[in-house]
C-alpha cells in the first residue's frame, strides 16, 4: 500500500501553516500604569466623599449633611470587625444568597435551555415569566412570608427572584445563538437529541450562562437588604436596615460597603469558576 503521496504531502502541509497557528497566549497582567490609574480613581472618590461629608456640602437637591465621613465609617467598620457578630451576619447572608443563587442557577439554566431550543417550551413558559419579571423583590415580601413556613426560606426565595431572570435570559440568548451548522454536522456524525444538547448546545451557550450567573450573583446580593427586612436577627442586609431604623448612620454605610464588596467578590468567583470550566475560552483563542 503506497502512501508516498501522503507522506510527501503531510510534512509539506504542516510546514507552511505552522507559523500561522496561534499558540496559547498567556493572559497578560495589567500594566503598572493602569493599576495606578485604578487605585488613583478609588482614592479620588474617597477624597471627594471625605470633603463633601466633612464640609457638610449642601447642593440643594442633594445634601451630605447626614452622610458620615469615611473616617467615621472606618471606625464603625473596625468596631464591627472586632465584634463577634460580624461572622454571624456574614454567615447568615452568605447562606441565603448562596441558597437563592443555586436554585436560580438550576432553574434558570434548565428553563432557559428549554425556551431557547423548543418553540413549545417558549410558548408555554415565556408569557408567565415575562409577567413575573418586572416585579421587584420588595413586592414579593408579603407573599414570600405567606408562602413559606420559615422566614429563612422566604429570604432565600427573595434572593432567588433576584438571581433568576439574569440567568434565565442569558441562557435563552445563548441557547438561541447556537450555530445551526454545528448542530447539522453533529447530527451527521451520529448525535441524537440529548447528545446535541450535551455536546453542542450547552457548551456553546456556556459563555452566556456564566455571564448570566455572574450578573445573577450580583442581583442576589442586590436583593439581600430587601430579603433581610424579614429577618429578626442576623445578616448584613438586616444589619444595614436596622442601622437605618436606629439612625446609626455610620453603620448604614458599613453595611452598604460590605454588601458591595461581597457581591463583587462572589461575582468574580463565579467568573473564575466559569473560566475553569471552559478551558477553550482561555488564552488568545478567537471564538
Amino acid at each position, binding site marked *: *500500500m503506497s*502512501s508516498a*503521496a*501522503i507522506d510527501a*504531502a*503531510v*510534512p*509539506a*502541509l*504542516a510546514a*507552511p*501553516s*505552522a507559523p*500561522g*497557528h*496561534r*499558540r*496559547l497566549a498567556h493572559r497578560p497582567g495589567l500594566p503598572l500604569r493602569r493599576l495606578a490609574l485604578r487605585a488613583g480613581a478609588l482614592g479620588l472618590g474617597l477624597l471627594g466623599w471625605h470633603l463633601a461629608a466633612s464640609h457638610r456640602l449642601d447642593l440643594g437637591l442633594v445634601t451630605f449633611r447626614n452622610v458620615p465621613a469615611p473616617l467615621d465609617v472606618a471606625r464603625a467598620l473596625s468596631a464591627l470587625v472586632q465584634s463577634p457578630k460580624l461572622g454571624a451576619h456574614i454567615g447568615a447572608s452568605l447562606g441565603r444568597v448562596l441558597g437563592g443563587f443555586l436554585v436560580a442557577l438550576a432553574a434558570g439554566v434548565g428553563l432557559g435551555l428549554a425556551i*431557547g*431550543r*423548543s*418553540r413549545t417550551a417558549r410558548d408555554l413558559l415565556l408569557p408567565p415569566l415575562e409577567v413575573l419579571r418586572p416585579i421587584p423583590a420588595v413586592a414579593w415580601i408579603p407573599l414570600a412570608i405567606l408562602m413559606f413556613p420559615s422566614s429563612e426560606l422566604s429570604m432565600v426565595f427573595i434572593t432567588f427572584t433576584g438571581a433568576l431572570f439574569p440567568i434565565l435570559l442569558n441562557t435563552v440568548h445563548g441557547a*438561541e445563538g*447556537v*450555530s*445551526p*451548522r*454545528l*448542530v*447539522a*454536522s*453533529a*447530527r*451527521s*456524525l*451520529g*448525535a*441524537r437529541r440529548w*447528545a*446535541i444538547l450535551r*455536546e*453542542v448546545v450547552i*457548551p*456553546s451557550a*456556556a459563555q452566556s450562562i456564566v455571564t448570566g450567573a455572574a450578573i445573577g450573583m450580583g442581583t442576589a446580593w442586590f436583593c439581600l437588604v430587601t430579603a433581610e427586612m424579614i429577618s429578626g436577627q442576623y445578616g448584613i442586609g438586616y444589619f444595614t436596615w436596622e442601622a437605618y431604623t436606629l439612625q446609626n448612620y455610620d453603620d448604614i454605610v458599613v453595611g452598604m460597603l460590605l454588601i458591595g464588596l461581597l457581591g463583587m467578590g462572589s461575582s468574580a468567583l463565579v467568573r473564575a469558576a466559569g473560566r475553569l470550566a*471552559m478551558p*477553550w475560552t482561555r488564552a488568545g*483563542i*478567537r*471564538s
Partner: protein
Amino acid sequence: MSTLATSAARAGRIELADVAIRLGQGEAAFDVVESVRLAIPARQFVCLLGPSGCGKSTLLGALAGHLAPSRGRVSLDGETVAGPDPERGIVFQQHTLLPWKRVIENVAFGPKMRGLPKAERLARARAFLALVGLEDFAERYPDELSGGMQQRVEIARVLINEPRVLLMDEPFGALDAQTRLMMQEMLLDLWTRLPTTVLFVTHDIDEALFLGDRVLVMSSRPGRILEDIPLGFPRPRGRDLVTDPAFIDLKRRCLGLLRPRDGKPPLPRLSPLGLPGAGAGAA
C-alpha cells in the same frame, strides 16, 4: 493502514430518482432543483460543478439527510435516505469542529456517539489524525489551527465513521492555492485507501477535472444536470495532468457550460443549511 479499511467490500451506491427540492415557506417557496436523475456507482469520485445558486449545496443537503426532497427519492444502496447518518459524512467549506473540544476529541466524536469506550475511541482518533498528518496537534483546540489543518481534522472526523459516502461542499474553497493543491492530493490518497463514494462540489474546474472519475455540470436554478462527463485520466494522477491537451479540451467544454446566460442577474448566496450568514431555526 489495513486496520482502518475494515470493510473494503461495503457498497456506497447513490441513486437520485426524479428528485425535486423546494426551499422557502408558503408563497415564497420555490424549486431549487428539479427532476434530478442520477446514479453513482459505489466508490466513484464524482465532482459537481454549477453556477452559484444552482442548488449544489441543496442537493448535498438532501443526500446528507438534512433536507427532504419534495418529490422523488434519494437512496443509498437501495435504502431511502431519511435523515442524517454517519454513513453519509459531510464536510463544508467552513469547518464545523466543536471549539470546546480538543482536536483529538473532535475526531473521536463519531465513535463516542456510537458508544465506543474512551480509550478505544481515542486510540482510533489518533490513528485517523495520523492519517491526515496531524498527530502532533491532537491536544490543540480547533481555533489554534490554520484553515488547512482545520479542514484536515474535519476530514479525519468524518472518515473515522467509515462512511459509505463522503459529501464535500467546496471543502477547499476557503484555502490558499498552495494548501488547496496539497489537500487535493491528500484527499485522493485517502480515497484510494478508504472505500468510499465521494460527491465533491467545487467552483474550480481544474479541481473537478483533477480529482474526479466523472464531472457533473448543473444548470442555473432550478438546477438540473446538464452534462455528465466521464474522465478517463489514469490514476495516480500527477500535477502535469493539467497541461494535458485532453484535460484542456475538457476544461474548455466545462467553461462553456458554466458561462452565465446573459440577462440573468446572479442569485443571492443564501444557504439551505444555515451556513455562514443564514440564521436558520433551532434543531
